[in-house]
Structures are given as C-alpha cells and as structure tokens.
C-alpha cells in the first residue's frame, strides 16, 4: 500500500514551490525595504507603521470593513428567507430553484458587474425610467449604494446555497415533533429550525465577507476611480505605484484578517455544534 502514498510526493514539491514559497516572498517584501545599494534588503516595520498611522490608509481599511459587513448582513437578511422558502417547496422544484441560483455564478464576475453599469448610470435604465415618469434623476453609480448592490448581487448565491444546504439536511421529524408538542410554527422556527441552520449561516458569512473585503473589480466598476478599498489599494501599489514592499505589507494584513476571521467562524461553528 505504501507504493500509493508516494503518489502525493510530486505535489508536495509543487505546493512548496507554488504555494508556500510565494507566500513567504510576500512576507519577505512586507518586512523589508530596498536600501541604498541595489538588491540589498534590510528589515523594517515601516510599511506596517505607515498603513496603521496614515489617515488615508486607515480610512480605506474602515471603508472595506464597513462595506463588507453591510454586504454580509444584507446577504443574510435577503438570503435566509430565500433559502428557507426554497426548502419548503416540492423536492423537484427545490433542485430546479437551486440550479437557477447557481447558473449566474458560472458567469464571470467581471461580466456580471459590468452589466450593472448600464442599469445604474446617470443615463442608464433606472434613471431613464424615472425621467420618463416625470421623477427627478438620482445619483446611483459611483456611490456606496452601487458598490454594496454589486457585492450583494455577486455574493448572495453563496449565502443562499449554504443556508439551503443546512436547512435541507435537517431531520424533518424534528419539525413534526416540535409541532406535535404544541409549538406554533414561529416557535418551531425560532427554537428548532434557526439554531440548526446556524452552521450554514456561518459558512455563508465566510463565503460572502472574504471576497467582499478583498475584491477590487466591484469598487472599480461601480464605485469609480476614486473609490478605494483594500483590494484596489494593493492593485495600485503593485501595478501603478511600483511600491511592492508596501503592497506586500497590505496583502499580509489582508491575509491575517482572513485567517483571523476563518479562525473566529470556525470557533463559532464549533460552539453552535456543541449547543
């Protein structure tokens, strides 16, 4: 049997070179600066200090957190009823509905986001409609609203599918038991269904919050050139400003945020499981 375990070896080498080494490179750049001599690196914390002390960068951090949190909350508020209602349909319809929710995810995020530009523009679908019925135009594109809308639109399916999965795995006899014991439908939901679906909600939160805090396409398309979030900041540091060290430091901070939130959700998940 041991001959089979050798089959994993090539990938171990590959992963060391293509996954671990590049991450180490990012950290190396984050903690160094290039000194007077070319190709001479010296240790420094100045990129991190710069990020956490300059107002402009802190604002980017807070904006990213705020937008990602609002997006995640909205996805739960909109997505939970959706998942719950789907789980109450006939089984064949359930499969069809989940398929319908999944299909847009096969389409490129860039394309899905671009489609919203035409709708939200000052001369776009919504404003043309408002004008035609005699209402004043409203500024939609290049606002927080547009960015959050784009994010909810792109990431909502993740939430719905995660919650739906946990709801549909639920033992139906529990619901009957609760009903037989005299609980009202609302009580059954609050005391039985909702607690059992928490792992799904938590999984959904990670799948929405993480891409939301790091995306740079959505803020760029729907927030405009002035709308800077963490992802946008990394992109400008690398591709426009040429500040690799500072860009690497921001990436390291992002990776830490992600790993920390994964750790927290895992812990929450465990606690929910123990209850």
């Amino acid at each position: 049997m041991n001959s089979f375990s050798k089959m994993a070896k090539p990938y171990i080498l590959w992963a060391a070179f293509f996954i671990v080494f590049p991450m180490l490179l990012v950290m190396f750049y984050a903690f160094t600066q290039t000194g007077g001599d070319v190709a001479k690196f010296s240790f420094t914390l100045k990129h991190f200090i710069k990020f956490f002390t300059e107002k402009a960068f802190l604002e980017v951090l807070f904006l990213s957190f705020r937008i990602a949190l609002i997006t995640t909350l909205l996805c739960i508020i909109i997505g939970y009823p959706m998942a719950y209602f789907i789980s109450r349909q006939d089984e064949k319809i359930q499969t069809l509905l989940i398929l319908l929710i999944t299909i847009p995810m096969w389409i490129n995020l860039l394309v899905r986001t671009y489609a919203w530009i035409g709708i939200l523009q000052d001369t776009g679908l919504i404003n043309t409609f408002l004008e035609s019925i005699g209402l004043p135009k409203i500024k939609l594109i290049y606002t927080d609203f547009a960015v959050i809308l784009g994010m909810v639109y792109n990431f909502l399916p993740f939430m719905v599918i995660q919650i739906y999965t946990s709801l549909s795995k639920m033992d139906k006899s529990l619901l009957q038991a609760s009903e037989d014991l005299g609980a009202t439908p609302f009580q059954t939901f609050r005391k039985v269904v909702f607690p059992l679906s928490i792992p799904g909600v938590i999984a959904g939160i990670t799948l929405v919050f993480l891409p939301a805090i790091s995306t740079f396409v959505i803020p760029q398309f729907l927030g405009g050139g002035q709308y800077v979030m963490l992802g946008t900041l990394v992109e400008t540091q690398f591709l426009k400003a040429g500040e690799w060290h500072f860009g690497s430091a921001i990436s390291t901070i992002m990776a830490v945020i992600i790993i920390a939130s994964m750790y927290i959700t895992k812990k929450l998940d465990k606690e929910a499981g123990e209850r």
Partner: protein
Amino acid sequence: MKKIFQKSYIALLLLFCYAPIIYMIVFSFNDSRSLTKFAGFSLRWYNEVLNSNEMMKAIYYTFFIAIVATVVATIVGTITAIGLSKSKKIVRDIVLEVNNLPMLNPDIVTAISLMLLFITVLGSGSKLFGLVTMLLAHIMFCIPYVILSILPKLRQLDSNLAEAALDLGATPWQALMKVIVPQIIPGIISGALVAFTMSVDDFVISYFVTGNGVRNVSIQVYTMSKRVNPSINAISTLMIAIITIVLIIINVIPLLKERRLKSN
C-alpha cells in the same frame, strides 16, 4: 396566502439575479451604441467581436488555458488525492492545510504572491510572461479544488478492495486503474468541472501574472470597460452561450450513457 408570498419572494429574487444578465444579452443585439435605448435588432457588435483579432485571441486563450489547466490539474489532483489517502495522517493534514491556502486567501493575495514568484524566478522582462505564467498560475489554483472534491470519495472507498486486487496478483497500476479510479470517477468529474469554471472565470490572478500582451476574456473586458463599448455585451453573451453549451453537454452525456446502459 403564505404560499403566494413565498413564491413571489423567490420569483422576485430570481428576477434580481437574472435581470442584469438578460439586459446585457438584449443590448448585445442593439443597433446603436446606447446602453439604454434599443434602436433595433442587429448583429453589428458580434461582427465587431468576430472581426477583432484581439477579442478572438482572448477567447482562444481563455479556453486554451482552461482546457490545459483542467486536464493537468485533474490528473495531478487525482494522483495526489490517492496518494494522500494512503499517506500518514500528519503528512496528509499538513498538505491539506497548505492546499487550503489558495482557496482561503483572497485572489489578490494569491495573485501578487505568484507575480512576485515569477518575477523572482524568471526576471521581470522574461518572454515567458503571458501564456506560460498564466498556465502555471491556473494549474496552481485549480489543483486544490480537484483534490478537495476527490478526497471525500476516497474516504468512502473500501480500502480492502485495492488490497484484494493486489493479493490476487494485480500490479499496483492495475489496482489503481481498475479498482480505485473507476470508483472515484464522480469526484474526478466534479473536480474537473470546478477547475474548468474557476479557470474560465478568473480575472484577478491572470491580470497580475500575465505579460507580453497575452489576455484572456476577463482581462480583455477589463481593458475595454474603461469606456462605453457595446462589444463587451456581445463578447460576454458569447461566453455565456459557450459555457451554457458546455454545461448542457456535461449534464446530458451521463444521462445518455445511463440510457444506453439500461437499453443494453
């Protein structure tokens, strides 16, 4: 009453999911530049896409990279998953932990880490930037998904079967191809499918590791999106059509096979 409310909520949200896509498809057939006024049916934007060397090349690169990356990632992922399932627990845990990194990390962090790797190893002006770097990057982020979709299938597998095959005189290769692989085919197929869509969909990683003017459709759309350009609607609709056809084929083939098996 309750049922009607539930159904209309579902319908409304589905409308929200599909409206922008339908809007885009409709306006890809628009006769004017406008994204709001439909001036009549025309194929002019499709003509523009088909006649544009750049856009056709982008479509070609997207699928070339997706197919090669999927094939390589599926083969490597399958071999690795089988190997890991027979490895010591500690080795398996460490490799899986590392394997998770590209999936957990934001795309942009993976992207810059690979960009730094390629620049360090190849030098910043290398001719290999473009197709080669993109292929390597796509293979790199596709393998983890393949491994992850095959491992659960291997766990369900009765390990005695492979041993029985070996005891009965099968070579390890025969045991692998005739006993193990046929039982994990569903996992391999779903892994390959995820890898393929991840590759076609990717923008961020490709954008950072490409060079020498090589663009996939995502990068092409991103570059064109700086100003209003209805050919984006056309090229996007084309991509949606291709993906839909691929999905239908993949879903229909097993059904046809089943039917043939039944009729035999």
